[in-house]
């Protein structure tokens, strides 16, 4: 019996040694970067453009000769929006594929589930999750690209205040994004002198929000409606809004920032306002705007490869992936620890979503300037100066 154990162990250790030697002899082997995204399932509107973006960008880097002569090899897994699946794929990336960095995590739920694994394995993890809890308190190995909900609430409230309004209704989605943004909005409302007089909610799979809107319509003191919600469900709300003939100022969130939302709302979103990243304003950005060049480059490339309009969600991936690539270049190393240090030292990185400056205390590195307030006009995003 003990002989079997011995020979088994021997086989494994020989195999492992062989593997190590092979690794040493191939200095030119590809750089492995992992991505776990919600390509299918309820959050596929996030994961799908993110997958297309990272594949396109990796191809671009490789076409230009890779990083210091080494190609990037992507390992992409689809968690279907399931936190348990995401956690398993995280183990797979770490133990099996041995990636040196991870870019992904489409939702807050999947990101939070994977986070301990990457912290423990000491591999840098660049997330696409919205919620603040991902980077606050700061986790040594975890970074994120999207603006937080607090920033979106702040931007919206500034605009409401500038229009001389103060009493609002909040109609939020019961998914992670909607709930988290609703909580942040409630928390910062007093700071902006905003009074939330009524609240309603809708489920991520709801197909009719007429009852909720009817309730809001019945409240006489509501001056504006804020809708923290993500994906396409708010488009149904915007349709119902128009059908009910409602005319109160309507604010939606950065979570609907894709052209699809406007199309699906069938005119219902006309006149609605929301904070969006520079990416969506595209060619309307001023020529001296430093974000104009990367925005136009990404937009052109993406719309050509993917044959669909860009969305903020793909933009999160663009910035995250590019920052990781830059960190690898800057550190001149493929050691996870050095890449992490380089990521934390990111200064003034001009992305399509915002301009990032990371510090040891701030692993998102964005300020309110990244957000532009737009109004939906003639089926397109139209930048507005606050309060006009």
């Amino acid at each position, binding site marked *: 019996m003990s002989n079997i154990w011995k020979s088994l162990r021997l086989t494994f250790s020989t195999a492992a040694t062989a593997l190590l030697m092979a690794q040493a002899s191939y200095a030119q082997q590809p750089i492995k970067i992992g991505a776990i995204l919600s390509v299918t399932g309820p959050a596929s509107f996030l994961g799908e453009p993110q997958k297309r973006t990272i594949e396109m960008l990796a191809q671009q880097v490789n076409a230009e000769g890779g990083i210091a002569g080494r190609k990037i090899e992507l390992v992409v897994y689809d968690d279907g929006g399931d936190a348990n*699946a995401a956690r*398993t794929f995280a183990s797979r990336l770490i133990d*099996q594929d041995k990636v040196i960095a991870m870019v992904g995590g489409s939702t807050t739920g999947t990101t939070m589930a994977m986070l301990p694994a990457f912290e423990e394995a000491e591999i840098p993890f660049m997330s696409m999750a919205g919620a603040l809890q991902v980077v606050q308190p700061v986790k040594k190995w975890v970074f994120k690209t999207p603006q937080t909900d607090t920033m979106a609430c702040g931007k919206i409230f500034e605009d409401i205040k500038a229009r001389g309004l103060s009493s609002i209704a909040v109609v939020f989605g*019961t998914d992670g994004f909607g709930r988290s943004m609703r909580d942040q909005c409630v928390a910062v409302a007093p700071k902006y002198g905003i009074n939330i007089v009524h609240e309603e909610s809708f489920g991520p799979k709801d197909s009719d929000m007429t009852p909720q809107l009817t309730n809001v319509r019945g409240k006489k003191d509501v001056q504006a409606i804020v809708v923290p919600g993500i994906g396409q469900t708010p488009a149904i709300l915007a349709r119902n809004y128009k059908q009910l003939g409602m005319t109160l100022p309507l604010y939606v969130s950065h979570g609907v920032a894709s052209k699809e939302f406007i199309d699906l709302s069938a005119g219902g979103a006309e006149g609605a306002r929301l904070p969006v990243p520079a990416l969506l304003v595209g060619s309307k950005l001023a020529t001296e705007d430093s974000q104009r060049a990367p925005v136009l480059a990404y937009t052109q490339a993406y719309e050509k490869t993917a044959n669909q309009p860009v969305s903020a969600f793909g933009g999160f991936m663009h910035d995250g992936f590019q920052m990781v690539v830059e960190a690898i270049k800057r550190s001149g190393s493929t050691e996870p620890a050095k890449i992490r240090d380089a990521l934390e030292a990111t200064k003034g990185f001009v992305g399509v979503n915002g301009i990032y400056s990371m510090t040891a205390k701030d692993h998102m590195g964005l300020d309110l300037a990244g957000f532009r307030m737009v109004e939906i006009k003639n089926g397109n995003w139209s930048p507005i100066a606050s309060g006009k």
Partner: protein
Amino acid sequence: MRSVRSRLLQLAILVAIIAIAPLLVPSNYYLRVMTLIYVFGLAAVGLNLLMGFAGQVSLGHAGFVGIGAYSVALGSVHWGLPGLYSVVLGAFVSAAIAALVGRPILRLKGHYLAVATLGFGFLIALLITNEAGLTGGPDGISVPRPVVFGWRLRTVEQWYWISGVALVVGVFIAQNLVASSTGRALRAIHDSEVAAQAIGVDVAKQKLKVFVVSAVYASLAGSLLAFCNGHITPDSTAGFLRSVELVTMVVLGGLGSVLGSVLGAAVLVLLPQVLTVFHDYEHLMLGLLMVLCIVMLPIGVVPSLAKKFARSGA
């Protein structure tokens, strides 16, 4: 006599697999996958007692997985309960809820029972999702790792052995339950409730008993899942798709086959890992495989194969 031997043989095979697997797998990733198989296997074995032996369907069993998972999360986050106590708490809550809702629900037959259990599971998932102040809402909640005898249990290996032992104990208890007088009563109910009643079986009581037992199995699996993941969300524990997955494990493995449920769990945990090579064709393949399994092995993998071997052996 023969059945005792076959039970021991099954148990021995399971113990052997659990003991030897860690020596053969090249990385922690495989250990995690095996751990998930044991955890879901435990829930499936419990559900099989209800579905395979008592013939009662539950499309909401993930609700109990959710209760078990969130009990350990809330127990340690909000109420400062030590890990082990909150596992027991979860099991008690699940048993109590099962006993409470079981009485009216189990009077229902066939598809009516299916829709009632489905509704029950939906309600639990909705509660967990909506009571965000307590549960963290849809984004989920982090679960601190428990400290047992001064040890903080956090490594993959530790949870591998804990869930492996839990599965063996679960299978052992299930086997004995099936062989006991309760098991005979259950089979009688499965064959015909009217006939069971006629020979003096308290049908309602027996059905309720097995429902409670299966709920406790699911709850324990949920607690284990929460501990070894470290973060749980409503959908990944109590969601409707999880309920469907559990039912699929039981049916694919074979109704009424304890070991089959473990095999069913293995298939459903492994498939998504294997199918990643198909990229965009993943769902298509998963659906196709489920359909093909039922078409080719209509009564589940283990019973179908057993039948074939018996025939060719005879």
